[in-house]
């Protein structure tokens, strides 16, 4: 049991892998409960239409069908679900579990068939007949904003459901004849999080006990539990939400989904286990989308290249519904609030409007807002550098928040904790050999090759505590997480957490921390997570908070547990607790002449009658400790990415030749896992920059509803990456950890966009829209050709 090794900071192999590599993973669809019924949905063919009639009679008589439900059939079974926010000018819209009078996006669920198998449920769902009166599809957010556009929701004053402005300094003055100004309209096209595991929900209601268990592929079991308690009117002690192995999330599994509510409602109605497993079509049409903004932005500079002011107008296409709990505001508002990025910009005005359209709802997706804000800001910086004839690296170094400026309050109100902004940029350039790369580029250009170098610097708020809200104005606490650590009567250590894993390796990371704090081997610690029965309150894993909050809570709980253990050991060793030392899973005291192992202590305390005085046991109780950790303001992660790309002038295809990132994420708990997170984040960022786009036609039909059309990067498109971990002063979070799960996706789109723009620079083209597909590059080059 004893371990002299320190686990934190080591490249430890993952504990999850044994089961995941051998088919032993337990994803929701792998769970078996006898008697489970399966659900298939009939979904809307129209993007915006009134429902005139639904005929389910043929479906009801199909073989194997237990029941068919429409909105009318579940009326009264569930209270309205409305994502609230204290933001001014936020107009909430309620979710529809099943569409009642109107559908607001193609793919919205209208009827649910419950049958003995999914095959039979789908057979019956196909026989449901629905009569619609089509309404104008609101596909273009600019059209949807217009005064004469039909309203999507009857209870909002217009289709602009959130409006907010961030402002500091004299913006008009900064933009009154500035020596240099760059301005552009940028477009970041809609993405799908596309976790490989589709969303799956299995509800098991036991009527005799009035107890509901929901197994769900979610990142936020605690949020789901608390929401279901409210909308199903089941007390929290009879509602357990379990997220077992979850096959990726990336933000797409942080919202409460109507299917999740519906299987719960139906399981209670039918008193049978009820399951729904999404197929990929349903995933791409009904799981929240990400990143969909039009940003008009301008940057003013003086002749020396100092930033004088920044101004932006952000229009977010937020789709049909405001998802619970993060609201329709989460993505576009963060574009505006993070736009100044890691730069010193005293004068800023960012206005954001979130516009409802007849599309799938926009929700959080890895990086939330910052992939877009970084794309816009970093493009402006490169455009300004070109205008001024300065190197992009020099212009950045000059304007970044400097080490002596921390803590730095961004014009939008965010406060940057000390983080390696300038150091990251310098390290990235050193590591990739930036100057040599520029010479190589010149040589390649002389040969007629379209080679480009792009960089992006970003900062990210992570592990935020109770002083801020995870989504603007969200009226509940996302600032704490809990750890409960227990020594059982056999000497076994079980550590329970609220933060849950959807692939990040938290089980490994958390056990590394607990093992070090208690001085035991990593295999001696069992981690329980992803289960609301584990701790009293939790909100889960999102916003790069899992490692910061989970390990912080673990350290506090371990310290509290140790205090108890030392007291018991002192009694057993006849020594004052303060003289007892605990090392390598054993207790000793000076002159006691012996050591007590953790196991021996546990067995003596719990099982040997009379060994510990009754009054002591009555007072101490279980040898366990539970603590919550609140990092208050959280901390700042940062990084610089550099990409080298080549554009093929014939096919207009972009190849990423080299990729490097330098990041400051504080204490690395497991460098192997940190690097893996960056690999995956960058791959998603490359997908966002070059390949991925959810496309709707003018009727609001999703044209990219399969993996044939929604193109995820494969091993061919993603390059080998190099990484530099900055070793700087650690932040003040417990353990010195900064969150880092999203950085890859934040930096990569901007770095790639800048690299492609740099490659196309000889043709005088600018990149203003992502993804920059071969077709868009072709059009840019054609446009340039016609101009010359």
């Amino acid at each position, binding site marked *: 049991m004893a371990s002299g090794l320190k686990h934190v900071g080591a490249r430890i192999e993952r504990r999850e892998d044994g089961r995941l590599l051998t*088919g032993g993973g337990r994803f929701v669809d792998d769970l078996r409960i006898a008697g489970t019924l399966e659900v298939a949905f009939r979904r809307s063919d129209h993007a915006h239409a009134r429902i005139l009639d639904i005929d389910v009679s043929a479906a009801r008589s199909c073989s194997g069908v237990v029941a068919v439900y429409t909105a009318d059939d579940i009326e009264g079974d569930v209270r309205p679900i409305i994502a609230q926010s204290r933001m001014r000018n936020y107009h909430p819209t309620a979710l529809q579990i099943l569409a009642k009078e109107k559908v607001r996006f193609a793919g919205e669920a209208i009827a649910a068939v419950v049958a003995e198998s999914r095959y039979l449920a789908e057979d019956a769902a196909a026989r449901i007949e629905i009569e619609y009166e089509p309404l104008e599809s609101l596909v273009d957010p600019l059209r949807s904003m217009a005064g004469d556009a039909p309203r999507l929701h009857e209870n909002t004053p217009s289709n602009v459901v959130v409006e907010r402005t961030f402002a500091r300094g004299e913006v008009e003055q900064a933009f009154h004849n500035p020596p240099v100004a760059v301005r552009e309209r940028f477009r970041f096209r809609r993405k799908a999080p596309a976790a*490989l595991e589709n969303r799956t929900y299995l509800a098991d209601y036991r009527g005799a006990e009035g107890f509901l268990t929901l197994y769900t592929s979610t990142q936020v079991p605690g949020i789901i539990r608390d929401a279901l308690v409210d909308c199903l009117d089941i007390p929290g002690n009879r509602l357990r939400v379990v997220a077992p192995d979850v096959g*990726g999330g990336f933000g797409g599994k942080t919202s409460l989904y109507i299917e999740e509510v519906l299987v719960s409602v139906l399981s209670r109605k039918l008193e049978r286990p009820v399951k729904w497993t999404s197929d*990929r079509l349903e995933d791409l049409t009904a799981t929240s989308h990400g990143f969909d903004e039009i940003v008009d932005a301008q940057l003013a500079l003086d002749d020396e290249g100092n930033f004088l002011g920044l101004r932006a107008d952000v229009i977010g296409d937020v789709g049909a519904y405001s998802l619970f709990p993060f609201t329709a505001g989460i993505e576009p508002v963060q574009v505006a609030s993070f736009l100044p990025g890691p730069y010193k910009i005293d004068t800023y005005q960012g206005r954001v409007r979130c516009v409802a359209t007849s599309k799938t709802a926009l929700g959080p997706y890895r990086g939330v807002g910052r992939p877009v804000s970084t794309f816009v800001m970093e493009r402006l910086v490169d455009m300004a550098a070109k205008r001024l004839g300065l190197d992009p690296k020099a212009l950045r170094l000059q304007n970044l928040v400097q080490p002596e400026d921390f803590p730095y309050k961004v014009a939008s109100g965010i406060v940057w904790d000390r983080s390696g902004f300038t150091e990251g940029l310098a390290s990235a350039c050193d590591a990739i050999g930036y100057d040599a790369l520029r010479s190589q580029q010149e040589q390649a250009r002389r040969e007629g090759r379209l080679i480009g170098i792009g960089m992006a610097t970003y900062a990210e708020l992570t592990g935020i505590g109770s002083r801020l809200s995870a989504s603007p104005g969200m009226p509940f606490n996302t600032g704490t997480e809990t750890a409960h650590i227990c020594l059982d009567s056999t000497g076994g250590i079980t550590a329970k957490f609220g933060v849950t894993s959807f692939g990040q390796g938290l089980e490994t990371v958390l056990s590394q921390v607990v093992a070090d704090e208690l001085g035991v081997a990593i295999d001696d610690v069992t981690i329980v997570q992803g289960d609301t029965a584990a701790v009293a309150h939790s909100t889960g894993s999102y916003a790069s908070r899992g490692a910061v909050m989970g390990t912080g809570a673990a350290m506090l709980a371990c310290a509290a547990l140790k205090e108890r253990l030392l007291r018991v050991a002192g009694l057993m060793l006849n020594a004052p607790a303060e003289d007892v030392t605990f090392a390598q899973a054993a207790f000793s005291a000076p002159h006691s002449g012996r050591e007590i192992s953790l196991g021996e202590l546990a067995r003596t305390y719990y099982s040997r009658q009379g060994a510990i005085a009754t009054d002591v046991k009555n007072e101490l109780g279980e040898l366990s400790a539970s603590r919550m950790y609140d990092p208050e303001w959280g901390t700042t992660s940062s990084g610089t990415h550099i990409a080298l790309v080549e554009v093929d002038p014939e096919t207009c295809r972009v190849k990423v030749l080299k990729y490097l990132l330098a990041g400051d994420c504080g204490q690395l708990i497991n460098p192997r896992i940190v690097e893996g997170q*960056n690999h*995956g984040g960058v791959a998603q960022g490359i997908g966002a920059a070059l390949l991925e786009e959810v496309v709707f036609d003018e009727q609001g039909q999703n044209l990219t509803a399969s993996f044939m059309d929604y193109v995820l990067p*494969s*091993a061919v498109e993603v390059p080998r990456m190099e990484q530099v971990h900055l070793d700087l002063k650690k932040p003040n979070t417990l353990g010195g950890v900064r969150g880092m799960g999203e950085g890859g996706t934040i930096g990569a789109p901007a770095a790639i966009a800048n690299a492609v723009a740099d490659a196309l620079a000889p043709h005088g083209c600018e990149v203003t829209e992502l993804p920059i597909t071969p077709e868009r590059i072709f059009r840019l080059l054609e446009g340039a050709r016609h101009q010359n």
Partner: protein
Amino acid sequence: MPFKKRIRVTVNGVRHERSVEPRLLLSDFLRHGLNLTGTHVGCEHGICGACTVLVDGRSVRACLTLAVQADNAGIRTIEGHGNAQSMSALQKTFKRCHGLQCGFCTPGFLATIEDMLNKYPLESEGRIRELLSGNLCRCTGYQNIVDAVLMARDERAQAEPVNRQVEKE
């Protein structure tokens, strides 16, 4: 009663005889008929490769194959590659290289790579990436998967320098 056809398959060395509807997908047969839930379904249209299994040694998309097509075949699913105590060489290199995160796509990758290792010399990283391009992973960015393949290739070359079977195509 829907029409059913009797099929015989050997899965991970165990013989099964079942009556199945002709429309039943091999992926559903394995997952729900035989409870071999290690085979995952990611897209059901043959793009993501998560459901890949070995049918008579060849990597096959179980979501594009009907169970009746596997009649008389020998199938190896992830459960047949090795368990946590006795992993296959490839499973071990995945663990060593951190070639998986959420693990959902992993069984499909392992099947594809086993087939690749048996068939091709895998002389370069570029060739490996090309052969991996039929399997999608959303977590790892592929780098550690590629490293796991390189390591498995080299280990295999060391272990059986002479008998290495290379299918020339």
